[in-house]
């Protein structure tokens, strides 16, 4: 198989998923790129390969998800063969934000993640309706405190600013303060039932409640249209705006293709790759706002294929990618808590984005503290020769012949990490470091350690911060 096919597959799996071991890349590349894209885009048609019933047997808190939700989503990200289904959950979780620090109700948060898993690749309109009725969101952005005659604008504003239109586009504002008010009026009555207290039998998921008596039935004018709008009417108006097409296209681009400027700059800074954005915008309208159609076009585009290593990996991508690579957590065991600690130390605690704006991405993931955690986590993992994934890398390299030159050792490790590309300068340094002993014999006692050490230095490189 052509090395480039595998390299391209490595790229697809890092972006549409959380990376894959070399063998999986080989299998998928043999199946073909477009076929793999289709498989990823149609998760329900394929097995998840997770043995979830067995995992639930040991992670007993997954029963009704009263607790254990971070563990559950983490388990899925690591183990699901339907990688895009999990990646899209993370995508929406970073945009349609809620946070456990305010909600403190895992069963309610779980329902929202399920919404993303179910509808995250479908129509953006349906997703916006779903999130507007999602009890987690209704509570998080206070729509339950918004009443006929006494609106709370929190949800109405963020729906426009952070979930659909964005503040502005091409230097123009996308909506006025009056639009925010009218939008908020249309969502009055979209509330939640009073919750069952945590004592004595634990938390229950919150429930959506539409209260017609608290809904403002008056006429509203929103984005130039006038009528007795309810929330769904507002969403119908929102999704047909060019600004929404731009907004969602830029988000898809930033998450799946390359780091561009972040949301607060979108009003005044045009996309770096306008051609790709335009392509996505057209597909958005052509497909009736279908995310799957947009992603199909995106993954098969040259812009995507040529965007290798142009994104700084998020902490969750780093952690999950590393765990998938080394093959940890294929079976249930104690200690999953420590994975969330790592997420926290690296700056991306699942279910706890810092604000309704989600996480700042790109180079903002990295500071002195998070960089050290990131490098040490990856370095400690890949250099642990007890992990099955590390063992399999060692075996695959050993199978290539009786000895390896320092160049072949470094290149072989880079290949096994999913055809990682590094600068020639960095490669030279790694080769030099491994040159002291000259050729390494693959049947020698310390071959394991030699490979482990080479892997450790590779994941400590600047290049490995990217995907």
């Amino acid at each position, binding site marked *: 198989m052509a090395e480039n096919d595998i390299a391209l597959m490595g790229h697809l799996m890092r972006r549409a998923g959380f990376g894959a071991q070399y063998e999986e890349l080989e299998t998928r590349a043999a199946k073909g790129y477009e076929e793999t894209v289709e498989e990823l885009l149609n998760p329900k048609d394929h097995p998840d390969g997770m043995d979830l019933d067995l995992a639930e047997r040991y992670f007993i808190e997954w029963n009704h998800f009263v607790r254990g939700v971070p563990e559950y989503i983490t388990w899925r990200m690591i183990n699901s063969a339907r990688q895009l289904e999990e990646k899209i959950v993370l995508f929406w979780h970073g945009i349609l934000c809620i*946070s*456990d*620090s*305010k909600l*403190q109700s895992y069963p309610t948060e779980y329902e929202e993640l399920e919404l993303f898993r179910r509808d995250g690749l479908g129509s953006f309109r349906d997703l916006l309706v779903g999130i507007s009725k999602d009890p987690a969101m209704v509570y998080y952005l206070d729509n339950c405190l918004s009443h006929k005659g006494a609106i709370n604008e929190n949800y109405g504003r963020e729906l426009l600013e952070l979930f659909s239109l964005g503040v502005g586009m091409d230097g123009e504002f996308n909506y006025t303060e009056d639009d925010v008010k009218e939008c908020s009026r249309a969502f009055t009555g979209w509330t939640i039932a009073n919750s069952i207290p945590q004592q004595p039998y634990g938390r229950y998921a919150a429930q959506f409640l539409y209260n017609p008596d608290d809904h403002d039935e008056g006429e509203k004018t929103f984005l130039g249209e006038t009528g007795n709008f309810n929330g769904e009417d507002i969403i119908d108006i929102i999704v047909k705006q060019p600004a929404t097409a731009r907004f969602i296209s830029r988000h898809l681009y930033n998450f799946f293709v390359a*780091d561009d400027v972040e949301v607060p700059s979108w009003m005044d800074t045009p996309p770096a790759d306008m051609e790709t954005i335009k392509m996505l915008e057209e597909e958005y309208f052509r497909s009736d706002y279908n995310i799957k159609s947009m992603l199909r076009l995106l993954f098969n585009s040259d812009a995507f294929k040529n965007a290798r290593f142009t994104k*700084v990996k998020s902490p969750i991508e780093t952690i999950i990618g590393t765990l998938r690579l080394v093959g940890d957590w294929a079976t249930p065991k104690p200690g999953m808590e420590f994975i969330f*600690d790592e997420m*926290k*130390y*690296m*700056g991306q605690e699942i279910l*706890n984005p*810092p*604000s*309704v*704006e989600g996480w*700042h991405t*790109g*180079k*903002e993931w*990295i*500071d*002195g*503290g*998070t*960089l*050290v*955690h990131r*490098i*040490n986590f990856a*370095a*400690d993992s890949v*250099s642990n020769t007890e992990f099955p994934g590390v063992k399999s890398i060692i075996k695959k390299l050993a199978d290539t012949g009786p000895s390896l030159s320092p160049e072949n050792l470094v290149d072989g490790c880079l290949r096994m990490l999913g055809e990682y590309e590094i*600068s020639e*300068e*960095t490669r030279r*340094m*790694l080769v030099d*470091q491994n040159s002291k002993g000259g050729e390494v014999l693959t049947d020698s006692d310390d071959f394991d350690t030699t490979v482990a050490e080479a892997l*450790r*230095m590779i994941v*400590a*490189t*600047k290049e490995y*911060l990217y995907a």
Partner: protein
Amino acid sequence: MTSSKKDPVLVVLQLSGAYDALNTVIPYSDPHYKDYRTVLKVEPEEVLAIDNNVGFHPSMAPIKGLYDQGKVAVIQGIGYPNPIRSHFRSMDIWHTAAPEKMGMDGWLGRAIGDMDPNKENVLTGVNFGRGLPRALATSGVSVASVGGLDQLGVLTGIDDQSQRTEALDIFARMYSPMIGSGPTNDYLSQTGLDALKGADILATAPESYTSNVEYGGDQFSQWLKNVAQVHLAGLGSRVLYTGLNPGAFDTHANQTTAFPQLWGQVSNAIEDFYQDLKDHDASQEVVILAFTEFGRRVLENGSGTDHGSGSVAFVIGDAVEGGLYGEYPSLEPDKLDQGDLRWNNDFRSTYATLLEKWMGLDSKPILRDSFEQIDFIK
């Protein structure tokens, strides 16, 4: 590096979990106190009285000792608008100094950015703990965050010292900026090198340190020892941060055992730290802020207390004008806020005072507003 030993230094102690304000500084002569706290009450004769109304919990004798020397400002009734009883959100508010809106960056990070705008010293801000608290996390500001002075920097998993030295050497070369590699790469290079440099410099701190003070063996005491080591090494650090593990003071149950243990440990560590600085003639250079995210319910729940609002914080040091500040919130049932102490003293007033009167900074851009200052700095 510039030696700036005389520059004022702020040490922040985050006492996570929400200590029970009502049993920390106890309104022992208020008749309501013993009604609310039938199980958890401290008898008046055991309270370390500050005056006829309030006093410290008996486990806080070391802090009472400092108070008697005039070194402790007790900030009563501290809180923030619209109290939220979530640990995380509440701690976020203390970190970002933004109670109304979800803030992204930390007040101390902004302060560090002000103090060292050209990033001349990678150690202007140092955190001892796991992960950087949001108080120190601010875009464009580099802060060193370490798990302790015996666990520094990258590639700590390499046990063999000479092998690690070699690996770090390669790391430094790999992170050297390369011409034309773009701003993100330059930033990553700089951050990598800063982390390396910070670790290298920090590693020297224990070498020059001798002390007669024997700190406790617990993590918090050891981190405070690290803070002392870093300060005394004269590395130019201006903000030093450490704290207790998340949830430490979260005494929903079994408060009678856990609470005195924790305050005993914290008070001893603070006393040791102060003594250590004093022995090195450096106690005038440092002011300590100790805080928690919120108070606990006035009414106990059986063996513990649930989440509440109004709290108490402490500012400690030679530069501090010791005494009681703010008003103790009323215990009258109709004066409580949904069963909690009603805060009356915005935490940002304390921040503003520390920034202006101690650190010599303009607090308005850092706190994004002006707040009344309190006279607890000499």
